[in-house]
């Protein structure tokens, strides 16, 4: 043994130069290393000798595959493709599809496209080995399937597919905009070609998600087909098994392994056609949506909103509302249909500048007290504050929203959007109210914690004593049912305290505590629902906002409230 092997080549040759003389020992060493590596692999298979480049043997795969599948061979300059065709009647009033949220120009021929691939990635190593194209000729629908007989046939396969897609064609796919088509483009690029030209591409996945998903377990094509067209596939090959089928076919050259894949793909292409038909029927210009359930109408309305086609959207929302009774108990994203549609409609009305109508929708949502009531209150608060210029009423409504939000949180479905909104809205509104009230009068912050402590067996500690703050947060531990009452305070001082009479918005409780009690100030209402609500699941600590203009006193005997800490709160005008 010499040192030859160990020596790094002085200068490595370029990859396209002649193979250097030192390659032989390097390859020999590599062979020994590979042998050792084989030995360490857990279930060592027999070390097969390196197969020589296999010579052309037997009939080309394309012929045997075509025989096994009942297709024909399309010979190209650079390999072969197997093609299968199936035709059936399927009348599609395609001109109605111009009314889709993403319209199809009816002058273009539709091409339904679905591929089967060797994987889910879109990297350069994933191969679409089967392309199904569905086209109409009058009222007959033809599915043409192109199968890749072997890796080397890909150039011919891609040529065949390109030839079958007319440049004026309008592709229709399911998730094809992000998967099938980019993957095909990748293959053309790999073979240094441009992808086939086409006029447009309608992806039905987003439509399915918007229109049908609400009544389906998932948005897979087969589920949509089953739920919408009522067609259930039997013996369908699950998509996850398809790549392995193809690899097995490549290993064994047994074309019959692909039969199930072909059927699966043919069904997928046919599904695209049927879904188009369902949509076209729904888009009947005489009575739009008559054939669709109200939930689908609401989804279609939302799809139009997204495309900024508001008139159509409103029309479908109204249709859905009018027929909401047909689908009792129907939920859309967890909310009863009518409530959801009313919200969507109110939002749309806002966008259209029809605020009066919108606010009446919001009011009905809020007063109905459903799951979206908090949203209704917030929107009303916005409306009242900005359009009716009444911060006080806006504040009242925001407080209502807060009460509902708390209720929803307590029942385990917190509405984070509303909560976040209120975290800013409430202090801001309080600030506006305070500014409106104070009118230059110096605020005189009373010692809240002392007042609390004097009032009863309550402990209070302020973490900060910061003059100029509007309020503090006091951390409370509730022990039992609290009985708090505000003490009408400082009569001579802060007069405006009584300006707004607010009803405690909390749910009805027994025993009554704050309920039905008129607070002299919105702040009290702010405190009220938090401190009481004994029916809520107990929490150890709760943050209370206690205004400095007010004092709160624990009246009930026994230590029912323990104020364990207080924290400075930023004055609202600082945001």
């Amino acid at each position, binding site marked *: 043994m010499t040192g030859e092997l*160990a020596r790094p*080549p002085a200068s*490595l040759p370029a990859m396209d130069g002649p193979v250097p003389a030192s390659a032989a020992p390097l390859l020999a060493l590599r062979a020994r290393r590979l042998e050792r590596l084989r030995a360490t692999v857990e279930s060592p298979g027999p070390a097969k000798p390196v197969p020589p480049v296999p010579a052309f043997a037997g009939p080309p795969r394309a012929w045997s595959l075509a025989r096994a599948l009942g297709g024909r061979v399309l010979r190209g300059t650079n390999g072969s493709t197997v093609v299968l065709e199936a035709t059936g009647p399927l009348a599609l009033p395609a001109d109605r599809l111009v009314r889709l949220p993403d319209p199809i120009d009816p002058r273009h021929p539709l091409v339904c496209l679905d591929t089967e691939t060797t994987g889910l*990635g879109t*990297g*350069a190593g994933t191969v679409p080995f089967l392309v199904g194209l569905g086209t109409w000729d009058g009222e007959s629908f033809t599915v043409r399937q192109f199968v890749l007989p072997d890796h*080397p046939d890909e150039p011919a396969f891609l040529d065949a597919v390109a030839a079958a897609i007319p440049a004026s064609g309008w592709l229709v796919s399911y998730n094809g905009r992000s998967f099938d088509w980019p993957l095909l483009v990748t293959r053309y690029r790999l073979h240094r070609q441009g992808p086939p030209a086409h006029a447009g591409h309608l992806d039905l996945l987003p439509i399915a998600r918007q229109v049908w998903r609400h009544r389906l377990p998932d948005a897979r094509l087969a589920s949509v087909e089953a739920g919408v067209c009522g067609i259930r596939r039997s013996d369908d090959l699950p998509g996850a098994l398809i790549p392995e089928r193809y690899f097995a076919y490549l290993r064994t050259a047994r074309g019959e392994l692909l039969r199930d894949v072909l059927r699966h793909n043919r069904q997928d292409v046919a599904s695209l056609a049927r879904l188009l038909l369902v949509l076209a029927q729904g888009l009947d210009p005489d009575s739009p949506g008559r054939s669709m359930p109200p939930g689908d109408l609401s989804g279609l309305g939302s799809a139009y909103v997204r495309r900024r086609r508001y008139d159509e959207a409103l029309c479908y929302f109204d249709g859905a509302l009018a027929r909401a009774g047909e689908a009792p108990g129907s939920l859309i994203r967890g909310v009863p249909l009518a409530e959801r549609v009313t919200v969507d409609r109110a939002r749309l009305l806002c966008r259209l500048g029809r605020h009066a109508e919108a606010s009446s929708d919001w009011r009905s949502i809020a007063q109905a007290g459903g799951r979206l009531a908090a949203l209704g209150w917030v929107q009303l608060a916005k409306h009242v504050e900005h359009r009716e210029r009444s911060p006080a009423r806006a504040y009242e409504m925001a407080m209502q929203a807060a009460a509902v939000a708390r209720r929803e949180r307590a029942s385990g479905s917190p509405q984070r959007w509303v909560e976040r909104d209120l975290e800013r809205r409430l202090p801001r509104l309080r600030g506006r109210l305070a500014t409106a009230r104070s009118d230059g009068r110096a605020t005189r912050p009373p010692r809240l914690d002392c007042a609390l402590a004097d009032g009863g067996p309550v402990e209070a500690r302020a973490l900060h004593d910061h003059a100029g703050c509007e309020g503090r947060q006091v951390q409370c531990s509730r022990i039992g049912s609290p009985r708090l009452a505000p003490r009408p305070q400082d009569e001579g001082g802060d007069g405006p305290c009584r300006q707004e009479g607010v009803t405690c918005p909390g749910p009805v409780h027994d025993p009554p505590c704050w309920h039905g009690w008129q607070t002299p100030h919105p702040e009290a209402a702010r405190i009220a629902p938090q401190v009481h609500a004994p029916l809520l699941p107990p929490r150890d600590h709760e943050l209370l906002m206690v205004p400095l203009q007010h004092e709160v006193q624990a009246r009930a005997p026994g230590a029912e409230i323990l104020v364990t800490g207080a924290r400075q709160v930023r004055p609202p005008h600082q945001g």
Partner: protein
Amino acid sequence: MRVYAPLGTAQALDRYLAEPDVTAGITARRTLPARPPDLCPFPEWLAPPLRGALERRSFRGLYRHQVEALDALRAGEDIAVVTPTASGKSLCYHLPVLQAVFEDPSARALYLFPTKALSQDQLAEVRDLSALAGMDLAAAVYDGDTPAPMRSVVRSAGQVVVTNPDMLHAAILPHHTKWFQLFQQLRYVVVDEAHTYRGVFGSHVANVLRRLARICAHHGSSPRIICCSATIGNPKQLAETLTGRSMRVIDRNGAPSGEKHVVVVRPPVIDERTGTRAGAGGFARRAALSFLRAGRQTIVFGRSRVAVELLLTGLREALRTGRGPLDRVRGYRGGYLPGERRRIEAGLRSGEILGVVSTNALELGIDIGRLDAAVLAGYPGTIAGTWQQIGRAGRRQEVSAAILVAGAGPVDQYVASHPEYLFRSSPEEARLDPDNLHVLLGHLRAATFEIPFAAGERFGAVPADDLLAFLAEEGHVRQADDGRWYWASENFPASEISLRVAASENVVIIDTGGPRPRVIGEVDLFAARTLVHENAIYLHESRQFHVDRLDWEERKAYVRPVDVEHYTQAELAVTLKPLETFAESALAAGGRAHGEVMVSSLATIYKKLRLETNENLGWGRIHLPEIELHTTAYWLAVDPAAVAGWRRAELDVALVGSGRALQTVASVLLMSDPRDLGMVAQVRSPHLERPVVYLYEAVPGGVGLSPRLYERHAELVRGARELIAGCPCRDGCPACVGPRSETGEDARGLARRLLALLKVERASPSRAA
């Protein structure tokens, strides 16, 4: 109360060096004379707007190395630029790239940087330059932080795409068809900080570049490659191994520099018996204080975050009692957000900040302006890294100073006693092995995924069919009737490769300290047992992490950040069996060899050792399974006759002691982490039936260190003997032959005697370096 008067840098240096214990510790003091610029006129073919941009920056010409680089590229050569920090290296690639874009707006360039910070810095630089030239350059960073909408724009229209090897490997190459505009028109590939691509990482990056070259060829481009490297012993070989091309080295630095004083200080021995030395931190702090009090801008480098915090606290404390420029000393860590970094950099440029204490975050070419003094608290691990840190000090006109304070570890001590390595010729070589089988097979999978292999097609220097046949046995690759090899699997092979580890099966390290768990790294199984066993202190980007739990079955280590003053060191019980000898030759009374070995090792215990002093603070057990590792090794066998009179215990101590010293020297010669090389001493090897010391690579398959150790044997043994001879300890210490032996043998003497037997003496048939 002290009064501070501004002093010159040289005076501040003298004041520090005049302190008696410092004076005694100086092992080298050199003055590098001021150098005028070696300025050449702008090449006449340079586009007028570019020339204008340079003139607007008050350039009167280009430095010699810049012109050489431009000319070589113009002549179609690939180049490796090897010039010091702040020599205007980046113009060697920005200018040709902008020139190419000027001549043909469809031209593209790809920049590779090892870190995100560098990417951002160089992006800003090339944008500035193009803006100054009035060019409308589409340049962007493409990495994990690039927002999705930006990505497709960068893909289709980015003229300069700035990224890192990991991103190129996992996100760009496997999707090359989406980048076809880039790969059709790629003119330049820039590989900056090439010296960081060594070891496992380098072996991976070399393969990523092989894949890149294949893809460019497929899409019809053949870009020139521009490598830039810090000064190392083998820049040409590194660049050629990395890129697979022959490279023209450009190393005649034409940038000017002011006079610079470089001093190496070794803190004195404080315990004669054990040879323990004072820590580097205290000496470094005093040096920094001397400069700061003189009003000189100073940067202090610590080796870990803890070291940085200690230095920072110490400096501030000292400056407080002395009423110094307290607020003007800042810490600077790798983990800082870009905004924070920029503020510190701006503060340094404006002079508002006087001192910075940094981990190695600043080492990789980030522009913080040029300072008066650099203080290195401990050897940064490589000579190239040392010069990069020293290079932070150095103004064009004025005198600057740099002080390296050696730490207590053996490598620090070895370098401190061999200052010629620092000043004359760097002995260190960056090594990588693109043909490491594990690494190579992984990238071959990825390459097949990207583009099928033609029969006989080469990957690297030789055809890859043998490897592809091996992969075909696994079933992920198949050879079709046309003889080509195709990817035939659902897997995405690039995702199975981490560029930081050699093997495919790794332990993932998860930081649980943040708001949500975060993966911070991976280590291979072999290393995991010594690096992330429970209670280990794991270092990541100069941060310490405590390993709370190692889930061996799930291959996950859960860690959280800590700041502690100790590190952990695990011990392995190792058995080693040679599998194949690649080369061997005789020595004075023994032989050397290198080849392939199988290492079985069991992690037994770990020790807690204090940083700086290596004082033992305790130990614990490790309960993990035994692991086998196929790797390469270099070994030294002793003629039994030559040690016939030695007691077994003596022989053992001598073998271990020599092995430790050889390990230390090897890590200096080959720029490797001391952990990259394991050592096994066998008093009587069951295979060779004689005493043997093995140095094995702790990476599956090795990364090319052992053949080089074999070749540099003479240097290695000489270095080990000098290391032992130069140590001030009485009979062995951690800085030379390792901790004192329990049996009280004279480890130093025995190891020296043994190493004498291993000199090259007889005429040897093989080629020694």
